[in-house]
Structure formats: C-alpha cells, structure tokens
C-alpha cells in the first residue's frame, strides 16, 4: 500500500562539497533527507513527489558536536538522542537538552535531527524556541556563498524558511552562555510521548555576577504563532531589575496578552492563552529556585 515506485535518483555523498554540487545541479528537483521522521511521513502521505533524494548520512562532519573557542558548533545531522545525551549540551544549554529529550519516542529521537527540525519549520518544532532563546545562528552553504543567519530571521511561516533550493543548512552555532544563565523548558501536550506540542515555552535568564540583577532575558514560545516567537516586551520589563522584586503574575499576563494563537485540534486559542500565562509563572518560579541554590 505504501510502496512508491516513482523513478528517482539517490545520492549519498561523503563530502559537503559534493552535496552542494548536487544541490546546485538539481535544486528543487531533489529532496534533502536527514532523519526522515517528518519528511517520510509527508512523502508516504503523498503530499509531494520527488525526482531524487540527497541523503546526508555519510557526511561525518554533520554528526559532530564541538566547542570552538566561545561557540558550540552542532552539525545539522546531530540527532535528538545525541543532543539529549551530550554532556556539553546538558551543561551549557539544559533547555535544549530537555526539549530534545521530550521529542517523540526513542525511535524518533534516534533518527530525527536538529537540522531536519529546523528546516521542516513546523510551528510546533520542539527545538526551535530553545534555539532562538540561546541566540542560535544557522550556517547556510551553497556552491556560491556562505551565510550565517540568526534563528529569528530564518523562519517565515509554517514550513516556510529563507532557505533556497541550492542552500544547505550545515551547522547550528550557539554562543557559550555566561555562568549565571538559567533556563526553563515547559512543553504542554495531551500526553508525554509522541505528542505534537500544544504550546511550548522557553525562558532563559542571564543574571549579573552577584546573581541578583537580571542582565538579559529571552522568552520564546512555540505552537502559538506561524513561527517560533520571542516576547521582547518581557526582556524590556525584566532587564536591570532585581529578580526577587519581579511580579511573576504581571509577567505571565504580559505573555498571555502578547500572543495570538489559533484554535486547532490540539487546543483552542483561549486555552493556549490561559496556559501561556501559567507556564510563564511556573518558568519564573523554577528559575527563582534554581537561582537560590547558587546563593
């Protein structure tokens, strides 16, 4: 029933340069396949046809997580399971590690990749708001040029990004966070495993050396807009303030007021707005207690 016999080519190059050549030659004719956990579901549902596959599995460079000076470089083919288990990711980006651990199931986490999650650009993509919150940049390569773009400029809408047919997402670049950085990850869904998020919230707070004053904040949400979004007003409200004097309820209300989610099968607009407020308060409380442990 699922067999598809449409003739098509299959490329699995070993080098990035070869992959780029194939892309520049075939462009839209060809589908880039990473883990396939989203792509193949859509393919066997006959949502698109392909004339060829470009499989990135043999490019070993894409499967590495490494630290280069003050940056973390994550290859596009790093799987969710790798992100979840990496000690470096746990240490520097705990929210990204937790988000990866909450994706799908062991079977999905072993195949699905960070690059695929980004390029698929689902409004409910679990890694997207954590990446935004940690100021991720994406390295896009083609035979012609190299571009490094911030996560917030990459997403245009559901399944829409600025990526051109000849471009390949090769790396995710994250700045190493300062020592007093706290994060909270909250995913709300109908059940724990194999669920598409009804709403996700990431709060990353950078504190001053003395751990009292808020230096910088990112509040990023998924599944409430066509793309992952940051609520920038929260940053304005919190920066420079003493954390102990913050009004959590007011900040929760701000998140509720600033989002305009839609009704869909996973939840109504009203539900999402209500929940957004509550999980923002929970996230602030979680960071509050993590911070107290360091005093």
């Amino acid at each position, binding site marked *: 029933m699922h067999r*598809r016999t449409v003739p098509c*080519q299959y490329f699995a190059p070993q080098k990035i340069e070869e992959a780029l050549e194939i892309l520049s030659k075939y462009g839209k004719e060809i589908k880039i396949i990473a883990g396939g956990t989203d792509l193949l579901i859509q393919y066997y549902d006959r949502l698109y046809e*392909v004339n060829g596959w470009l499989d990135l599995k043999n490019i070993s460079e894409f499967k590495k997580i490494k630290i280069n000076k003050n940056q973390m470089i994550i290859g596009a083919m790093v799987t969710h399971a790798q992100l979840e288990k990496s000690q470096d990711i746990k240490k520097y980006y705990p929210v990204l590690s937790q988000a990866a651990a909450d994706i799908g199931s062991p*079977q999905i986490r072993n195949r699905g990749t960070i690059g695929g999650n980004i390029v698929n650009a689902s409004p409910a993509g679990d890694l997207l708001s954590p990446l935004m919150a940690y100021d991720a940049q994406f390295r896009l390569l083609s035979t012609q040029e190299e571009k490094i773009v911030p996560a917030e400029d990459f997403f245009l809408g559901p399944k829409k990004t600025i990526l051109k047919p000849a471009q390949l997402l090769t790396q995710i670049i994250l700045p190493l966070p300062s020592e007093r950085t706290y994060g909270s990850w909250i995913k709300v869904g109908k059940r724990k495993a194999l669920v598409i998020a009804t709403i996700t919230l990431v709060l990353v707070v950078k504190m001053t050396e003395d751990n009292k004053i808020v230096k910088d904040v990112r509040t990023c949400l998924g599944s409430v807009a066509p793309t992952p979004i940051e609520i920038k007003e929260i940053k304005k409200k919190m920066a420079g303030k003493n954390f102990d004097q913050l009004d959590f309820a007011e900040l929760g209300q701000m998140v509720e007021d600033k989002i305009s989610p839609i009704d869909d099968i996973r939840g109504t607009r009203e539900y999402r707005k209500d929940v957004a407020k509550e999980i923002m308060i929970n996230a602030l409380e979680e960071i509050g207690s993590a911070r107290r442990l360091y005093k």
Partner: protein
Amino acid sequence: MNKLTIELTINGEKREVETATSTRLLDLLRDDLHLTGTKEGCGKGECGACTVIMNGELIASCLVLAPQADGAVITTIEGIGGGENLDPIQEAFIETGAVQCGFCTPGMILAAKKLLEENAYPSEEEIKRGISGNLCRCTGYQKIFDAIKLVANRLSKRDGGRGGKDA
C-alpha cells in the same frame, strides 16, 4: 536509476538486496526478505510495531528508506534468541502474560532488549520511557512492565549484581 543494490547485515548475516529508492526498510524486511516478525501498524512512526535495531539504535523501520539503511547492521525479532531457545526477555513476556494478540510484541521485545542493554536496572519510570514509542492495544502495559522487571531481576541475579530499583 530507480533500482539500486544495497548491502545489509541482518541478524548477523550479510545480505545483498536489490531495492527501489523509495522502498521503506519495513517493506524490504517483510516483502523482500520475508522477515515478517516486523509488523506494520500506523506507518507513521507512532506505534512502534515496525521497530528494529539498526546500528545499535532502536528505530521505526517505516520511517527509513531502504537506501538509508545501506551498510547498516540490523537486528529484527528473528535475530533475538536462537531457534528453539528463547531470549530471557521472551521467556519473561510469556510467563507474565505480557502477550495477547502479539502484534506489538516484536517491537516491545526489541525496545526492552535495548533498554536493558543500556540500563540493566531500570526503574518503573525508566521502563515507561524505554517503551514509550511502542503501543499495545490489548494487555495494557502493566504486564509488559512486569515482564521487563522480571527479566531485569533475573539477569541481575545471574550477574551477581544488585536488584532492580523497584525490586
């Protein structure tokens, strides 16, 4: 170039198979290699009936193109235990009544195998997480948890280790 030949090591045996670029690993296993212990449930990676171990990792074979598995080492349910000899996990499933219709069982056994390989003494929470990608629609999950706990306890006794966390 619709057809291509791939090489796989399946249950310890090297196989060369001609396949199509858009064939799923699941169909290759079932239809071409007649390894029908691997089941198709949802075809969307959600039910785990098509679970196999590929290059040491638990995967859903409905979400892998056959050529993606070129060069891979694969264990299917047929590669667990040997002939008449059952794997201790299979024995435990039978003893605790963790099998009813049997459709989820191959995937459950492989998920349990992988879980116990990585974590010999899993807690109940860890067991739940380990088999969270496998759905059962008959027995419910309690007997399956019991089976995994039973085998963990037995293996730990055999190895002279400590008991399971929930023992």
